[in-house]
């Protein structure tokens, strides 16, 4: 194994210098239990990972970004990895996995007494990543006894210790009735979710946690007994990685930071420092930085509640960039990039670092970054070398120091039964900090820049929407939308004290929409929430102030609690979906096209649009090589099911004109505008905006009455339309004129508010697995 020149220089400095770097005073080989963050550092442990495969003296492959290639990667494998214990007193290095010459190691964590290391290893190319553990001292033969804890045809990674010899890790096994979640926006790759087991039982005690729709990575234990992790939040247009925490029994998944501002897109590789709820992490782009970025300290401590974290803190309040010269995006770095920080007992940070641009420029010049181990001093902003091999990456380093074992939180939830519901609800749905702290307002229909506090007082129900992705609908994107697959589990009644309570299927990610008397969402929650079997997750309100008290609107027991939760534990096949067209069941009453065909297409079709001839606009593409242009003609408002001449998404059959007609105007503006698409003609109003019925001109045109007062309209009759392009000029009850019932208009509203998907499980011939993967019961 070759050492770098830097390390050679370090060797010249002598052992004392190395010890000095780590603050070693009176160092002992026996870990002392002096509380987390206290104690000497005489050894460190880390993984050595390869990036270059050499065969016969010739480089055959350089791999810095395989797997899924992003900061959530879990698949990269290059043989020749090591798990090293480095004795800083004498520079002696042990390789714990020396018998596994072709292995790679993707994570590690020390037990709280520092006598064991749990790590994830793939033994060779044909293997999968699994969880192993080994003692940190060798046996009499000088070997480390390696024990495998998990098996099977899937990857288990990111393993960390929790109190009571529990281990929490991630897995991509099939954990739903739909198989492994396959986030379409991650190319339908298999998504990692959380699981736990015991050190003694391994796979025999394997227990799956409730789920997110996208990846969960880089777990870390917390002083209060929780497990922290980085979670890719992908909910419609939301797309970033932030910090979460949960109990080791998978209950109470809560955001820790990053939801209300952070210095970059992705916050990953966090660890808790010597002070509770103060974290060290990496901020970077989601991809293209070889999983490295700028070093950041996150002070998530609540200013009001001792011992608690406050996820509402702003970027300015919580984030301190310790390496401000390192970009938090993926641009070329003038100062290298960092990975995997851990605070040492003396307040400095043990971290991996590589010099150079550490982005795609490293790749294009075939020069992999060389991550080595360093101690970073946050006060002096200086970095000093600890260990670096010139041809490998040294990662995930931890000081071999005993810590106080956190309290055991593992006994609250022991049910493994997907038929036992989770309970969710609010004490007072109008309690919110969304306006006071985060500046959100509501407009559209009856609201004109109203505060959320005001608007939520008009909530009459809370819509609970299950999310799924391509694992379920057997489809790719769900239409002209960035929204995931969606099904309504139910709409819980908001009581007069503004409380609500509902039982929902456990494990399943859901998001909520408080809805008004017009059945339109007041706000669409942009975070997935979930619960374990039997778990209660009752909030103060709708994103209530995390530092305030949550007082109900009248009495101690809410009305919803007094009445008992509404039961929305519905089998998959019976959940409410709104397939746009071609439902598998021809009698499906929620197929949107049926409504449009019956009530709208007579006037809005290929030739006519209301009282006028149908208009069209044209988008044109030009092949830059052949200069051949192709044009696609889109009707202004054709609500028929006729197959129009264009074909979109990945479907070879033509799609109904109604869907293209309604959603394409919004799709054109979904990101940065029209790009290089040439448009000839007038693009019509945004008839339908995914997840936003309130601003969808179709709904405004139709109008809708109150569920409580049939004479009250969402948009007052006779007033001007918000978009002057709309025919007629002033608002009417167009739905009534067209013969649409209120129930039918509500179906259109729900379809749009849920994301405007074309596909659902109910028009894609979806069949769930016969076995219950969560409980492990055989079919």
């Amino acid at each position, binding site marked *: 194994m070759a050492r770098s020149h830097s390390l050679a220089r370090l060797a010249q400095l002598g052992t004392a210098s190395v010890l000095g770097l780590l603050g070693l005073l009176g160092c002992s080989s026996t870990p002392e239990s002096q509380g987390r963050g206290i104690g000497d550092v005489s050894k460190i442990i880390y993984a050595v990972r390869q990036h270059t495969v050499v065969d016969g003296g010739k480089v055959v492959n350089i791999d810095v970004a395989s797997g899924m290639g992003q900061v959530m990667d879990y698949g990269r494998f290059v043989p020749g990895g090591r798990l090293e214990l480095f004795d800083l007193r004498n520079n002696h290095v042990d390789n714990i996995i020396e018998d596994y010459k072709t292995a790679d190691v993707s994570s590690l964590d020390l037990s709280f007494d520092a006598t064991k290391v749990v790590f994830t290893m793939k033994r060779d190319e044909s293997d999968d990543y699994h969880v192993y553990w080994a003692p940190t001292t060798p046996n009499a033969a000088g070997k480390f006894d390696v024990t495998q804890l998990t098996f099977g045809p899937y990857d288990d990674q990111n393993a960390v210790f929790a109190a009571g010899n529990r281990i929490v890790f991630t897995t991509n096994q099939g954990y739903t009735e739909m198989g492994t979640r396959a986030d379409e926006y991650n190319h339908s790759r298999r998504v990692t979710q959380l699981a736990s087991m015991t050190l003694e039982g391994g796979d025999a005690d394997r227990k799956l946690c409730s789920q997110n729709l996208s990846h969960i990575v880089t777990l870390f234990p917390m002083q209060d007994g929780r497990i922290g992790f980085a979670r890719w939040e992908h909910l419609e247009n939301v797309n970033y990685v932030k910090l979460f925490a949960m109990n080791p029994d998978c209950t109470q998944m809560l955001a820790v930071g990053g939801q209300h501002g952070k210095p970059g897109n992705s916050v990953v590789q966090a660890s808790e420092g010597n002070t509770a709820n103060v974290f060290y992490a990496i901020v970077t782009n989601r991809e293209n930085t070889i999983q490295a970025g700028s070093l950041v300290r996150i002070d998530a401590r609540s200013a009001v509640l001792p011992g608690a974290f406050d996820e509402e803190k702003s970027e300015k309040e919580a984030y301190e960039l310790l390496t401000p010269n390192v970009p938090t995006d993926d641009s070329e770095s003038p100062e290298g990039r960092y990975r995997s920080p851990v605070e040492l007992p003396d307040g400095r940070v043990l971290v991996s670092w590589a010099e150079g641009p550490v982005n795609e420029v490293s790749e294009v010049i075939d020069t992999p970054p060389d991550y080595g181990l360093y101690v970073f001093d946050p006060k002096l902003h200086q970095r000093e070398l600890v260990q670096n091999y010139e041809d490998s990456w040294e990662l995930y380093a931890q000081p071999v120091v005993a810590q106080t074992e956190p309290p055991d939180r593992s006994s609250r939830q022991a049910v493994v039964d997907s038929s036992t519901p989770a309970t969710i609800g609010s004490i007072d749905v109008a309690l919110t900090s969304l306006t006071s702290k985060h500046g959100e307002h509501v407009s559209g229909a009856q609201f004109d820049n109203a505060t959320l506090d005001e608007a939520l007082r008009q909530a009459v129900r809370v819509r609970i929407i299950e999310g799924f992705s391509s694992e379920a609908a057997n489809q790719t994107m769900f239409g002209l939308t960035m929204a995931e697959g969606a099904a309504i589990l139910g709409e819980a009644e908001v009581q007069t004290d503004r409380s609500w309570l509902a039982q929902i299927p456990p494990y399943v990610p859901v998001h909520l929409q408080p809805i008004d008397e017009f059945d339109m969402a007041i706000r669409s929650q942009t975070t997935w929430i979930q619960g374990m079997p039997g778990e209660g997750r009752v909030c103060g309100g709708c994103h209530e102030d995390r530092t305030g008290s949550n007082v109900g609107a009248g009495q101690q027991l809410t009305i919803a609690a007094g009445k008992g939760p509404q039961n929305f534990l519905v089998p998959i096949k019976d959940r409410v979906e709104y397939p746009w067209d071609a439902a598998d069941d021809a009698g499906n009453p929620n197929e949107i096209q049926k409504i449009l065909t019956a009530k709208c297409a007579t006037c809005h079709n290929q030739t006519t649009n209301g009282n006028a001839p149908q208009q069209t606009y044209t988008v044109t593409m030009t092949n830059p090589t052949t200069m051949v242009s192709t044009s696609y003609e889109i009707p202004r408002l054709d609500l028929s099911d006729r197959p129009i001449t264009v074909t979109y*998404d990945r479907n070879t059959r033509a799609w109904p004109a109604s869907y293209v007609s309604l959603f394409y105007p919004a799709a054109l503006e979904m990101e940065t505008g029209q790009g290089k698409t040439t448009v000839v003609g007038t693009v019509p109003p945004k008839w339908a905006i995914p997840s936003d019925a309130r601003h969808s001109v179709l709904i405004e045109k139709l109008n809708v009455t109150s569920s409580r007062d049939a004479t009250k309209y969402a948009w007052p009759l006779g007033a001007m339309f918000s978009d002057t392009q709309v025919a007629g000029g002033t608002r009417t009850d167009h739905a009534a004129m067209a013969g649409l019932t209120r129930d039918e208009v509500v179906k259109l509203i729900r379809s749009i508010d849920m994301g405007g998907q074309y596909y659902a499980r109910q028009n894609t011939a979806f069949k769930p697995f016969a076995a219950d993967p969560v409980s492990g019961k055989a079919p």
Partner: protein
Amino acid sequence: MKTKLRSFIGVTLFAGVCSLAQSSAAADPSTLSGRAKVYESLDQSSLEHVTSASALSTELRFENVAPTRIWKLLEHGEKVECLDCIPRVSKLLYNSNAKTREISAWWLRRRIFGVFGPGEVYSQVIGTLQNSDETDFNRAYAANAIGEFLNPAGVPVVSKAALSDAAASVRLASVQALERLNNEGSEMAIGQALGDSDEGVRLAALHAAISINVFSSVDQILVLFGDPSALVRRRAAEAVGAMKLSDAVMGLVALTDQRESAPEVRAAAVWAIGQLADSAARPAVEAALSDSNPLVRNAAAISLRRL
């Protein structure tokens, strides 16, 4: 990322393009719909940049763009309607980098126009797979693309290739395409592929069998307990455990003793027995506690807790 010497001139040129892309990508969305609406209360520095159409069409012209750069451009351009970019991206379906091919197909399948119409990209890819005059590489890459397009219309095409293409690499890619399509294939092609003469194809079929929603040929998995390849035997045992095929317990027992030469197979069989939780196999698992290989003993200790 296969190594390939790239010129300094290319790097310099590329860096110039990068800066153009950065400035373009940093521009705020012009409307408050979609992404802009969701993030209106957040600082733009919190968000990832969206690839501009000009960056897509400009940067993809060059030969020496790093794969990670291509992936980022396409991923961040998931909703950028750039019809002119389609011909450039469609060339990447035949790139030597597997992930570049995958992400290119992903971007293309999300396009509204220009891909799935008559004579457009999708039909061209179908034609490539069906054309025996094409190279093995191109046919295999075409099968990859058909899988990544996730279009059920591709099932018959890749099913046929999975069973009848002369090249094992094409058959393998076609089986993988069926897995991506979440479909066991016409005439249960994945089940038939379990009996392919090529080890790689059989392994791909085993992987597909435990990944798709509906798989009807479970009996074919049990046949693989006698496969000459230890890796196939191991993966077959793991598949049985993952699918909880209780009828397979005796076959698994036969794989647990020392007559099975590969310890990885013995460990997989012992683990699978634990997944089936069939106490009839307890003696075999207890015997495995004395196996010469420590990983088999680990698996036995864990499985016994389930029996």
